[in-house]
């Protein structure tokens, strides 16, 4: 077998996480090799190691049967490895041509030789049947075209192995087809392609070999012909699940939030979600399962009023809230834990006291007669959150950015639970935090649920979802495809519905 890349027992750990453990993968020359796995399964770490962006703690890499140790992307490029990042590394106000040749010449004062380069790049483009107008500004290109520029960029630097990090995540379906056509062309011209994805349909369409990663380990490498989508989903998600602790309280009968066939689309006409209906009862956790990008994020955002809806109605405690502003909704008793705590939940350069008031400056507790905030109450409040949620911080005057991720998240959850809301929307409440903080947050969510809170839980972590939720609804391509009771759901089932395999 003619190998392009052969890794032997690669391990890499970050503080508190084993990102890769004993990964051995063989990638055949002139093939498309897909690496699939859930978020956080270690795909990206493996790619960073192959591209020289991080060094493995142990293990060996062979590139074209030669032992290689790379300490920078530059060395990887010299070995013929090129990477197309998910976020394009392109300068908007430069032309395509300038972007491609940037960094090839030493910074000297001589003529750039744009004509010469243009001819050379055109040769590369015709070899691999890729097409783009070199004189356009990158700003004016579509997403698919930008991606093509990135591919040409690495090919022009002599890459024979191409790493594509979630290349289809940003593309619309037609662009995906175009990309796949291009990739097959590249394969025929003896380029090896490593394709990272978590979309099984696409992987089965394009890849020759598929490696599945889960929790930092390489589960298996299989040929496309020998595997079914179900088997892949099973390998990806895993079978073992912890038994959820039995709950002692009962779900009440009254609906806290009732959503009736809402629909929303983006400005360019792409549908975010269509005809979505569900409701959450008092004292219930409703889990939302779905592969990222299937509309669940937008549905949640439309409940708190960040996302507009074209049709349908949202009832909160029996009252139609379609026309209420986000602040009115929050003040009427909806709490929201956004998925990105650093971007959406906190202001990193403010101290904890200020972070506790954000968005709540109008509620009675903090309002004084003048147009000022009652700081004393705010300090009391944040001290309260700190002690109840075991946030490790010197005092309430500490900047949010000084806290560790787990403590930030505990603070956010505590803040959102503080005013006794009747609905909590928790989006990825424990993503990327340590196990201690995770179990504390789970415990608090269960407690609040038992005390009557309705929780809408969105999580990519299926263990968390099944363990916490009372019911689970599954999103696929912008619609709810299935409602399940968490007592008798198996992860295979869930994976099947999430990937559109089961209906």
């Amino acid at each position, binding site marked *: 077998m003619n190998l392009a890349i052969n890794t032997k027992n690669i391990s890499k750990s970050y503080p508190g996480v084993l990102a890769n453990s004993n990964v051995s993968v063989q990638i055949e020359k002139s093939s498309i090799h897909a690496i699939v796995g859930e978020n956080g399964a270690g795909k990206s770490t493996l790619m960073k190691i192959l591209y020289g962006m991080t060094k493995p703690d142990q293990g060996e890499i062979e590139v074209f049967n030669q032992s290689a140790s790379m300490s920078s*992307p*530059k060395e990887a490029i010299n070995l013929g490895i090129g990477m197309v990042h998910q976020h394009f*590394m*392109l*300068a*908007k*106000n*430069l032309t395509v041509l*300038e972007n491609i*040749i*940037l*960094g*090839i*010449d*030493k*910074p*000297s*004062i*001589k*003529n*750039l030789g*744009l004509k010469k380069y243009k001819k050379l790049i055109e040769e590369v483009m015709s070899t691999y049947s890729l097409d783009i107008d070199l004189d356009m500004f990158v700003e004016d290109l579509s997403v698919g075209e930008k991606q093509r520029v990135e591919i040409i960029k690495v090919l022009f630097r002599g890459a024979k192995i191409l790493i594509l990090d979630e290349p289809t995540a940003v593309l619309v379906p037609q662009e995906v087809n175009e990309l796949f056509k291009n990739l097959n062309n590249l394969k025929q011209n003896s380029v090896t392609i490593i394709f990272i994805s978590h979309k099984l349909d696409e992987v089965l369409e394009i890849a020759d070999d598929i490696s599945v990663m889960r929790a930092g380990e390489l589960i298996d490498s299989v040929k496309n012909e020998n595997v079914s989508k179900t088997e892949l989903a099973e390998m990806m998600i895993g079978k073992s699940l912890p038994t959820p602790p039995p709950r002692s309280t009962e779900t009440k009968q009254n609906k806290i939030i009732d959503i009736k066939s809402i629909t929303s689309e983006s400005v360019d006409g792409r549908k975010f979600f269509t005809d979505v209906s569900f409701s959450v009862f008092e004292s219930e956790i409703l889990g939302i399962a779905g592969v990222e990008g299937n509309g669940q994020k937008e549905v949640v955002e439309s409940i708190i009023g960040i996302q507009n809806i074209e049709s349908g109605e949202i009832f909160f405690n029996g009252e139609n809230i379609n026309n209420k502003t986000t602040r009115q909704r929050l003040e009427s008793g909806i709490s929201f834990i956004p998925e990105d705590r650093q971007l959406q939940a906190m202001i990193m350069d403010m101290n904890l006291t200020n972070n506790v008031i954000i968005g709540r400056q109008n509620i009675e507790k903090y309002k004084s007669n003048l147009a000022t905030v009652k700081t004393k109450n705010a300090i009391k409040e944040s001290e309260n959150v700190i002690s109840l949620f075991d946030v490790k911080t010197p005092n309430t005057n500490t900047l949010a950015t000084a806290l560790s991720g787990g403590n930030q998240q505990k603070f956010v959850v505590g803040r959102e639970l503080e005013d006794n809301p009747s609905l909590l929307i928790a989006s990825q409440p424990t993503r990327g935090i340590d196990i201690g903080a995770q179990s504390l947050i789970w415990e608090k969510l269960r407690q609040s649920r038992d005390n009557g809170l309705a929780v809408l839980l969105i999580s990519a972590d299926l263990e968390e979802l099944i363990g916490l939720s009372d019911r689970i609804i599954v999103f696929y391509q912008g619609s709810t495809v299935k409602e399940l009771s968490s007592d008798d759901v198996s992860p295979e089932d869930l994976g099947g519905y999430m990937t559109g395999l089961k209906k």
Partner: protein
Amino acid sequence: MTQNIFRSIFRRYIVITPILLVLIVAQMEEYSQLTTSGTFGAAIRLAIPIMLAGLGGLYSEKTGVVNIGLEGMMIMGTWFGAWGGFTFGAWQGVFIGMLGGALFGLIHAIATVSFQVDHIVSGVAINILAAGVARFLNVIAFEDIAFASSTASPRITGDIGKLTVPYLAGGQINGEETSNLFGYIEELNIFLVSDFAGLVLGFLSNISHLTIFALAIVPLSVFVLWNTPIGLQMRSVGEYPTGSESLGVNVYLMKYIGVTISGALSGLAGAYLVIAGTGIYLEGQTGGRGFIGLASMLFGNYKPFGILMGSGLFGFADALQLRSPKAVHGLLVIIAIFLFVLALKTLFEKKYIPSLISLVLSSGFLIWFLNSESIPNQFVYFTPHITTLIVLSFSNQRIKLPEKIGVPYKKGELN
């Protein structure tokens, strides 16, 4: 083809309309000063420092560093230029002035690039520091020298030299007068032709060697920034430093180079004021030209020739104000007509409110013009600034700012 030409002419109405209007108004006897070679010559002299400061801003901002310290670097250029000019001679003074500016550019680079100080804060600090340093140095260096005070230096030694092109503009060859072709045409007073001859004559006669040197920097900058590997790397650093770094570009070095060149050019601008102008350093001599240079950079949309145009406009208005306050009165009708054209244009684009405002302003200026013989002196001094302001605010073009301008870059951090 012809359609394209018309379209591109129409798109540049903002530049073309005022030029046409100036030409037409200049045909009136009382406003003939508008287009004489003398006016143009003065305009060039006044425009060069602004242009150099604008180019300085360009080099810095293209690498992503906001340089509001141009004024301070220019002050250093005036003092070091005068000191060098007094101690060693004119050309040495130019060089030392550039070094002085570059030194302050380097300080700005160290603060903003290495220590990630906010660009505006550092720039303001540079401006304040430079004013103090210049006075301090002046007191120390010229303590016992005649004709020097705490705010002024003695006269520079030597002369930078001037050029008048023979045959075309009546320059001398071996001490003998030659014909003055463009001067002859200018005196004929033919519509357009004579005005054009005046413009050319302004460039050809009695022109300082330093002016030629400065003007040569414009095409040179186009070459360096757009046609060399180092220029490409410098521009990429202002656009997307993370991406550039991943392609092996030394981001910090490029920023350092850009900001230091920026300082050197501002220093040259200051030295020009001294060596091609007054001959001595005076406190407050720069008079905010560094900031106007920044405005000319925006007006020129980050293009060297655009900066030349922008500073030329300011220089023209300044020259007019100095040479012929009477001709400034003619500008009123030009502004009125220009605003009227603008009103029509916005009307076609169905932007009714801007159109109405333009129309009202237009008639206001027209009434003023018709009911007055001259403009109050106070307004005359103000002409260059108001002209720049009007053109800047109505130019309404899409300015292409570098993407990551003013954003501090830390190695290894994704942004």
